[in-house]
């Protein structure tokens, strides 16, 4: 009781109300997630050249499998060295760029393609709708990893093949979601009014429908960044992910897994980086969803 009384004046204090409002908004933000993302993903990616202590590609067999500095290893390598004698910390720092690049490229391509087809299917209906929905069905019924294996066998695993597979997996999700939303909005009053007013299809799609599905797009994309990072790691495990000697996080865990007993640090630290990043991204995505698009049911 006395506690409540003590805090009362502070809460109603008028001069503080503006800053308090800001503070409350800030507190609503998933602050921890954002800080983790900044530390693990964004800052390393932006400043890799400045903060990485070593060249991520340069190693020497003489220095392989050295323990982290705080674990009895030499102070030169804070998180130890991998099986080629490369500095793990530097590789994780540079690896953030690959994670961002893969996720951005894959999601952008899938998002644009899926949105475009989804909008058209939902708006024009008829044969376009039938065609797009069949394509979605086909895509969703072919196991993506099978395609990944075959593509990698045919052209060799590389950045572009990984992005292609990711785009292939994700576009259908966008197309289906956006189609559903478009269907709903096409039947709304304001679209009908625009139609009566003589607006072109293009104008209706871009000015009236697209803005209404943007929230869904943003939430989907945020939630999928995490999925892409984890999926890329699974591809690496099967030998069809980002190729060696690139410092991709997934590749680092996949290659480091056989040292899980003798040199756990090779796979542990990139694993930690993936976990923190994906966890934060998902938290952020959930938060965004609650704010922007609470009805979104798609994962």
């Amino acid at each position: 009781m006395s506690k409540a009384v003590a805090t009362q004046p502070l809460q109603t204090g008028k001069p503080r109300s503006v800053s308090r409002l800001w503070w409350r908004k800030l507190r609503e933000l998933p602050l921890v997630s954002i800080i983790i993302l900044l530390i693990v993903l964004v800052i390393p990616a932006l400043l890799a050249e400045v903060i990485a202590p070593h060249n991520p590609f340069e190693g020497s067999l003489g220095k392989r499998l050295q323990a982290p500095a705080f674990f009895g290893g030499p102070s030169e390598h804070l998180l130890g060295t991998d099986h080629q004698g490369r500095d793990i910390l530097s590789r994780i720092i540079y690896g953030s760029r690959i994670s961002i690049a893969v996720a951005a490229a894959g999601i952008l391509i899938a998002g644009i393609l899926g949105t475009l087809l989804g909008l058209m299917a939902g708006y024009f209906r008829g044969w376009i709708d039938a065609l797009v929905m069949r394509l979605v069905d086909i895509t969703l019924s072919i196991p993506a990893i099978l395609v990944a294996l075959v593509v990698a066998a045919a052209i060799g695993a590389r950045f572009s093949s990984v992005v292609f597979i990711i785009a292939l997996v994700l576009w259908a999700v966008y197309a289906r979601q956006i189609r559903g939303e478009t269907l709903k909005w096409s039947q709304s009053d304001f679209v009908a009014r625009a139609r009566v007013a003589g607006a072109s299809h293009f104008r209706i799609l871009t000015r009236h429908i697209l803005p209404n599905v943007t929230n869904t797009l943003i939430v989907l994309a945020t939630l999928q960044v995490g999925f892409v990072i984890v999926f890329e790691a699974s591809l690496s495990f099967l030998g069809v992910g980002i190729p060696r000697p690139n410092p991709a996080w997934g590749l680092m865990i996949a290659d480091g897994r056989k040292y899980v007993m003798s040199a756990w640090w090779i796979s542990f630290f990139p694993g930690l980086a993936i976990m923190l990043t994906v966890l934060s991204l998902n938290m952020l995505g959930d938060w965004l969803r609650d704010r922007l698009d609470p009805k979104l049911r798609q994962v």
Partner: protein
Amino acid sequence: MQRFIIRRLLQTLVTLLAVSIIVFALARLSGDPRDALMPMEASRADRERILVHWGLDQPVHMQYLVFIGNALRGDFGESLQWPGRKALDLVLDRLGNTMELAAVALVFAIALAVPIGVLSAVHKDSRTDFLGKLIALLGQSLPHFWIGIVFIWIFSVHLRWLPTSGRGTFQHMIMPAIVIGWFQVAALMRLIRSSMLESLDSEYVKLARIKGVSERMIIWKHAFRNAAITPLTYFGVMMSYLVVGSITTETVFSWPGVGYLVVQAVTARDFQVVQTVAIVFATVIILMNLAVDILYAYIDPRIRYD
């Protein structure tokens, strides 16, 4: 209703036909099975002869017509890699193991997702909500294979609670099923949470509250029963993720399912098995989705069959 089902079945056929063409072409783009399966000592003449024996000397469109003709009669050809094994038998044998694991994984996912989803909806934005989300999201934050290896290390090597790998007893299934299922918990939990939030907000729940029904009854009897239907839509998609997730998980736990068979078949350029896996897989996914749609139509009569 009947018209709806017939139409959907026809669409299924079109989809399967397209899948067969795509996979047939993809398989052939992936390379030459002779390089994967024949010894280096093989002479030019031998290589030519084996090609004829496998029927791969024919023009590609002829190969496809032969394949699809036989496939329609249920004959998917003989595996190139496993001499004397019918591709379909091989795949179905292994698919049984994969489905077994997927089913246990699903039970686990539901068992974890339902309480988390309901609790985090009831106690929205509380510490329970956060903790629940954290548990659910953890399973999605690491690749299957890595969780699998860490599990083996903790529960088999150090604690000696569970067998490392292989198939046999129920204990063998626990770790791989959790690894596969955990990945799905987050998605399922989100669905349950959002539909719970919706039904907690509905008129009849408010009415029940006014009538003085106990909170527990409201949550589990009124709100949850109505919310439980929603995740069903996701069932088909989830099943496909479960099966896909099994590829890496089966490799880590040496579970003799279709997942590792796929890896072997692609490595060996075993066209017949690759094609069969893709078509069987597609059929399973499509039929699952169809079953879910029909089920959903029963539950929610507002859905129009057009």
